[in-house]
């Protein structure tokens, strides 16, 4: 079993019309054992920028601390909030610095940026290779195939926030149901230009 599959976990981001949605499962486990069922993998950097982290939980926590440190420092120096595309680049650089002894994380960045609040999503591998997509990105090495199949079918562009919520929830819940190492419910954030709506879903509790 690969190190990236040790804790399991899944995170998914989708682009809608003037909004982005990001969702993750809630399981925290060590191989077959489930340790906690209330660990979301999406973290708020600022109201328009969220980071998702799948992979080894230990490295997720370390990287998250480093990201929070760097973004707070950025806000102090620049006197403005960091944009998602800039954060994506920052994380990519941070990970590549450890090219030959990497952090076992798979990050996902999403948010709205610019004066028009244009949606932005991106994902990376453990050494920071960025993947910029226009439709959806997903992370979590144990669930990629399950989520790709259903997202590819159910996603369509220009969904309104409420519709996007339905689609991303169905995709995530159906996808993690077929993975033993992810699940135990989900948390979904819908980010629009004036608010972030967060909902916790109760899925299959196994």
């Amino acid at each position: 079993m690969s190190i990236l599959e040790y804790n399991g976990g899944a995170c998914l981001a989708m682009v809608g019309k003037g909004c982005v949605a990001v969702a993750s499962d809630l399981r925290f486990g060590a191989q077959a054992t489930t340790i906690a069922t209330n660990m979301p993998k999406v973290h708020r950097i600022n109201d328009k920028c969220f980071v998702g982290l799948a992979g080894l939980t230990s490295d997720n926590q370390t990287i998250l601390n480093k990201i929070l440190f760097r973004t707070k420092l950025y806000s102090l120096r620049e006197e403005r909030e960091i944009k998602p595309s800039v954060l994506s680049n920052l994380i990519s650089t941070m990970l590549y610095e450890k090219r030959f002894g990497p952090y076992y994380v798979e990050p996902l960045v999403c948010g709205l940026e610019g004066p028009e609040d244009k949606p932005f999503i991106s994902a990376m591998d453990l050494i920071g290779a960025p993947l910029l997509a226009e439709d959806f990105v997903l992370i979590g090495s144990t669930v990629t195939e399950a989520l790709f199949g259903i997202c590819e079918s159910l996603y369509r562009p220009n969904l309104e926030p409420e519709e996007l919520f339905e689609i991303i929830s169905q995709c995530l819940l159906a996808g993690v149901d077929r993975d033993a190492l992810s699940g135990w419910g989900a948390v979904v954030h819908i980010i629009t230009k004036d608010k972030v709506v967060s909902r916790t879903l109760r899925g299959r509790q196994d």
Partner: protein
Amino acid sequence: MEASPVIVSAPLPNVKEQARFSPYTNNGGTVLAVAGKDFCVLGADTRMSEGYSITSRNVSKLIQLTNKCVLASSGMQADIATLHKILLIRLEMYKHENGREMSTTSIAQFLANTLYGKRFFPYYTFNVLGGIDDNGVGCAYSYDAVGSFERVRYSSSGTGQSLVQPLLDNQVAKKHQPNAPLEDVVSEDVEQFVRDALNSAGERDIYTGDHMELKTVKATGITSQKFDLKFD
């Protein structure tokens, strides 16, 4: 002129190197079946691969066993071809000995027995059987390589199985949709859905693509259709 011998590779001490011939390979592809009230739709792509190469864009994974039953198989093409041949031969023998075709439920059991017969050198085949039973009700059966089987309403197998199965859970069984009505669907809608599922699998699975074949089993007979998938 004499050249001194050059050692190109030396074995490590105390480690025995053994070349191992594997009798199995996976030729890729995705198959699925969705059973309705009085019909069953089976779909499969037609790509055959070996590693990262495509060896054929037009190999059928579906075989009509009787006029009420179709078998879809993924896995190793050599074993698929042999398994299909054996089943056809045995079904023909059954017809001569019993004066009628084997019922779908019996074929389901027979396939399981055939697969388990090679429990210690299995057919590398992942099968999905579909058709209508003796009461005219649509049925689908899913198998593992050694014959463990179960009657289900829908099933998928192959390299695209993990992509397609969650979609089937969500759209056919309406999982996580507590307010969705579980009503009967017509075969045309199911055919369109199977096409969409294979299209999506073809997008993200490198071993699925080229063309797809659909067979719909109804009491009136079996209809076949063929559509294009991406060639990439």
